[in-house]
């Protein structure tokens, strides 16, 4: 005898809309938000131990690919999400800033671990005390290093942010003021 087993795989539910034979009408910002959130291409800017923990998150046990981040990009031009993982020294600061500036809109920044968020335990002359001193950050993941579950939680929060953001965030005055604060246009 055979029993039909319902699949345990969840896929992203379709947004609310009007369905008919051969068409589906919904709001564009819902569709674009859903598309952006579920296909974030991260740029793993991995410097130290948090980078190793990220490798564990990408591997099969915790699998970041389930959330749409299957394709990592090491080129900033092709990435959406800059994940800064690890200690950033003051000498690395201008390089990180250049990588951020090269990313095309829309872009988000995730700061993983204590060192990227605030300098961590390294309150010294050579370590940048938090990347938010040079680039705007959307989500911070605390931990030293954070467990893969925490990283996935951070990515899910980024997804919530991405879904609900306005489509042309780059044109809003608030965003322009934020970039002006960091000295970027």
């Amino acid at each position, binding site marked *: 005898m055979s029993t039909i087993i319902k699949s345990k795989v969840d896929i992203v539910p379709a947004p609310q809309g009007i369905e008919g034979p051969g068409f589906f009408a919904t709001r564009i910002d819902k569709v674009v938000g859903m598309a952006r959130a579920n296909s974030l291409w991260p740029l793993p800017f991995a410097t130290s131990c948090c980078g190793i923990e990220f490798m564990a998150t990408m591997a099969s046990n915790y699998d970041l690919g389930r959330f749409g981040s299957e394709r990592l990009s090491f080129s900033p031009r092709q990435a959406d999400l800059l994940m800064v993982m690890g200690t950033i020294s003051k*000498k690395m600061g201008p390089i990180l800033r250049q990588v951020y500036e090269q990313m095309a809109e829309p872009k988000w920044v995730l700061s993983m671990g204590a060192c990227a968020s605030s300098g961590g335990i390294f*309150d*010294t*002359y*050579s370590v940048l*005390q938090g990347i938010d001193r040079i680039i705007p950050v959307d989500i911070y993941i605390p931990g030293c290093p954070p467990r893969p579950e925490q990283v996935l939680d951070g990515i899910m929060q980024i997804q919530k942010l991405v879904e609900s953001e306005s489509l042309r965030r780059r044109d809003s005055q608030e965003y322009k003021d934020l970039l002006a604060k960091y000295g970027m246009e």
Partner: protein
Amino acid sequence: MENSLLLNVEEKLKLTFGEGFLSAEQHYDYPVFIVKSEIICDVIRFLYNDEDLAFQYLTTLAGLHYPKNKGMELGVMYQLHNLIKNSRIRIKVFFSIHNPSLPSITPVFSAANWMERETFDFYGINFNGHPNLKRILNMEDMKYHPMLKEYPLEDGTREDKDDKMFGR
């Protein structure tokens, strides 16, 4: 056995350098020799070329700062290794913080190039004859030499650290 290395090297250095050789001591498992800073390149070259001693591997080179030794505050420590006999010695030179310069040993060991740059970066010690003496690990525009004892370890720009909690 370690003592014989100490005596051997001490004898040879005294013979060749006379006045330039200052002292020899055994610190646990390392013979440590203190020589005058002006002749350090000749000492290193002599130890390299000597057939019996043959210290042809520069393990490390580091800066020292003892602010309490007036007149001899800054120093450099060289650690040399003999690959054939598997023995190591340490050579230290000391000089005043008001005139922190000594000859570079890059003509003998190319490895000393980056090591001396690091020592310059952190202690401000000038190596005469170094091909490219500039900062290596810190930002190029850093205005001070951080490992000197008068500078604090902490980054000065944090506003949220409460001094009472950190025992200051």
